[in-house]
């Protein structure tokens, strides 16, 4: 799997960064001046401009190796968008992207910590632990952070899972954001993250988020398109690097998703 590399810090970008969402509208101007417009789905694209500075030689070498592997603009790679939620449908756990073990009952429309009703209540009526999870098409060995706002009036616990790793939190009636982060060993092309509920647990959740970084960032609500972009290519035929000193390199990378 060709994938845009993470930095040694566990992040996959630096600020500032520019993201441009592109749509295309077909416009037909009639003889009487009226306009007829159509959305052209084939023209949808997303562009990123990453301004990277202070990269070690090893970090820059990974980017250069990717550039060589994809032969410049020719081939595509996977990018985990640094300003997106890698989970799809973060506020609708009824969608098929969420894999739900059979004894879990999920009730939507619960009051969330920000005054809305986008939280959902998960009840495990089974005799064994049950999980609610998603699988993303990202590299197994990356650094990931899985987070969620959680509470439990009855004092249940919640385990935030990353593959087979995870962290367990004792909850009370107050909302708090809990997370599990780190890198797991493995070289696969997918990653499973989610939430595990003990037998009898009843937990309210809001804003599940998966990011390819060390700690939870700002929450991004997601719908049918999350931050995994499987067909991204470089936009430039050259890869310019500026050596700032012996172990500090800088460059501007322009990427485009060709979905």
């Amino acid at each position: 799997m060709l994938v845009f590399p993470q930095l040694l810090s566990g992040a996959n970008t630096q600020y500032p960064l520019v993201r441009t969402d592109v749509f295309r509208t077909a416009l037909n101007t009639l003889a009487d001046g009226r306009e007829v417009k159509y959305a052209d789905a084939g023209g949808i694209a997303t562009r990123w401009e990453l301004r990277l500075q202070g990269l070690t030689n090893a970090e820059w070498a990974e980017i250069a190796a990717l550039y060589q592997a994809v032969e410049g603009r020719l081939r595509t790679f996977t990018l985990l968008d640094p300003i997106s939620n890698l989970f799809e449908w973060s506020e609708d756990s009824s969608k098929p992207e969420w894999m739900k073990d059979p004894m879990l009952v999920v009730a939507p429309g619960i009051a969330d910590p920000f005054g809305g009703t986008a939280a959902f209540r998960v009840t495990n009526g089974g005799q064994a632990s049950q999980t609610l999870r998603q699988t993303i098409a990202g590299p197994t060995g990356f650094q990931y952070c899985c987070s969620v706002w959680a509470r439990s009036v009855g004092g249940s616990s919640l385990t935030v899972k990353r593959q087979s790793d995870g962290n367990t939190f004792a909850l009370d009636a107050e909302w708090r954001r809990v997370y599990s982060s780190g890198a797991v060993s493995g070289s696969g092309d997918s990653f499973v993250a989610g939430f595990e509920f003990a037998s009898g647990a009843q937990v309210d959740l809001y804003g599940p988020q998966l990011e390819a970084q060390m700690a939870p960032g700002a929450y991004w609500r997601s719908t049918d398109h999350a931050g995994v972009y499987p067909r991204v290519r470089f936009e430039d035929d050259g890869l310019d690097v500026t050596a700032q000193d012996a172990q500090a390199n800088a460059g501007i990378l322009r990427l485009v998703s060709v979905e």
Partner: protein
Amino acid sequence: MFQFEDPWDATVYENCSFESDENEVRWEGEEMGRTRIVIRQNRN
């Protein structure tokens, strides 16, 4: 098309759309985005 309320004088304009097919957001840091959006009213 959507309805747009002018923040200057609260006039509500019907049949508005975005002027551009592109929306560029520059992120200076987490939750520090900056963009420019042009909205136009369609009169026909």
